[in-house]
């Protein structure tokens, strides 16, 4: 009974998430104005017919910038989570299954990576390497793969003790077959759930870096930098800050909710 309710919740949230993705990816269709087109006449106009979210300090349409900004943030986040997920799971599985020296070395590296506070490293790397989304993504990516690696390793470790792995060994199956056919499918569910929960945190990290000016290079639209730019004249044109802030909040909440719901569903 509880499972049905959770399933419904997951479906609604995934539809919302999908809607969000579609809106940002096909921003061109939805937003009429060009996000980077400045217009001296329309500086800081309040939300009206042709500028649904008003305009910012340079007269750019906030509505289209929010949509295009969404595309930058969300694609960067998904790419980063996907790469860390793939790298982390692969390394975690190999370490968990083989153990021994490989496990020792790789996990030591992971410990060292985890020894640095993520944001501090991100700021240093982005700061020294210079701006641009690539720098920010590398900065966050360095430490993100570790959480996937650790999760995958601990699951592989417990899966390896299961009887069906012993049965597969007796059936004459090789290590690679066992990892791909038996370990990976049973591993995907928990690690994917973790990926879902990482989306929210990554988005916070990325927009945080852009807010500090270490992420996106102006004029490309990105929620963090939009909030940072709009902050200076918040009294006169609050909409230039509030709409990207709202967009960030809603997106993060949707993905965190989805992550939570999937986790509860798996535990129920």
């Amino acid at each position, binding site marked *: 009974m509880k499972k049905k309710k959770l399933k419904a919740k997951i479906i609604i949230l995934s539809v919302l998430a999908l809607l969000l993705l579609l809106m940002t990816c096909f921003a061109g269709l939805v937003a009429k104005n060009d996000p980077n087109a400045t217009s001296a006449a329309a500086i800081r106009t309040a939300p009206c017919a042709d500028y649904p979210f008003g305009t910012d300090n340079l007269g750019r349409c906030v509505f289209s910038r929010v949509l295009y900004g969404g595309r930058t943030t969300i694609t960067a986040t998904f790419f980063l989570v996907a790469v860390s997920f793939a790298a982390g799971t692969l390394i975690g599985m190999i370490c968990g299954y083989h153990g021994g020296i490989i496990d020792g070395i790789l996990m030591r590296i992971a*410990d*060292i990576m985890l*020894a*640095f*506070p*993520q*944001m*501090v*490293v*991100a*700021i*240093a*790397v982005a*700061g*020294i*390497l*210079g701006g641009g989304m690539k720098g920010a993504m590398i900065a966050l990516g360095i430490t993100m793969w570790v959480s996937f690696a650790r999760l995958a390793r601990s699951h592989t470790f417990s899966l390896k003790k299961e009887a069906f792995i012993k049965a597969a060994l007796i059936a004459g199956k090789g290590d690679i077959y066992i990892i791909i056919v038996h370990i990976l499918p049973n591993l995907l569910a928990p690690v994917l759930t973790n990926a879902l929960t990482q989306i*929210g945190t990554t988005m*916070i990290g990325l*927009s*945080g870096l852009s*807010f*500090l*000016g*270490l992420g996106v290079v102006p004029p490309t639209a990105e929620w*963090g930098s939009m*909030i*940072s730019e709009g*902050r200076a004249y*918040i*009294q006169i044109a*609050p909409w230039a*800050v*509030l709409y990207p*802030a709202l967009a*960030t*909040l809603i997106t*993060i*909440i949707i993905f*965190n*909710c989805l992550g*939570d719901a999937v986790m509860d569903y798996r535990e129920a």
Partner: protein
Amino acid sequence: MIKKVLKRILTLVVILVILSFFVFALMYIAPGDPAEKRLTSQGVAVTKKVLDAERERLGLMKPFLVRYGEWLFSIIRGDFGISFKDDMPVAPKLLQGLGRTAVLALTSLAVSLITSFLFAVASVLKKDGIADRIIKVFSFVSNSLPNFLISVLLMYFLCIKLKLFPVIAKGDLKGLLLPVLSLSIPMIGRFIRQMRAEFLSEMSKDYVAGMRGRGVKTGYIMFNVIRNSLGHIFTIIALQTGTLMGGSVVIETIFRWPGIGKLVMDSITARDYPVIMGFVVIMGTIYLIINQIADVLSHRLDPRPES
């Protein structure tokens, strides 16, 4: 026992050296030539001769490993080199900034810990009651709020709409409130969720049912549950200090709180590498030490060998 302590210190030192090497290497691959930047930022006409003299003075000509060795030993002696921007020694600036950041960070940490602990215990005691549901929603939303977002919203509503606070923090107590609030809210959300999960998992253990079966009072049961969860909670707090450090950089920039975070942000725009490197080394060291302490504490609290 001593063997364990020595082993722990050794790993600490090794990781710190690797940390410093990583930071130094980072500077090496950074685009642009620091000497050139220093000259231009001081408005000096850049000619080959002047550039070479500058590089010589900053010691940029020596091979990479030699420069790294020198830099490492100077750090151990507490000398973080001289700032590119104003030729002042970096160490005092960093430490002074660190002091003010500590004020901000520790107050936020204290505020968050106390509130989240009370909320977590309350929500576990009245599980699935209204209080529990409210706390769950609150902690969920606040955990999804990036601290730069909260600070903007707080600034908008409290400073502009209600005019309760000055927009620029003047470093006094009143100025401390908004930054602490912006730092604490996401932390409170995260702590409540993690502590609540820890308590609930402990509550589901057999010994809690055993104690209830003997009519042990709820007070004693909660004491045992909390006592057993303390080990994990220390680890959670230690990990959270990392995010707190990152957060304080953001908050200090927004509210112009003169801590180490603001210092490092200014030095990033000015490409002042020694300050950035000093920041990472100091923060990395503090973070490592905190995690080692948390590790020791959690082993002391739960001596059972790792199952």
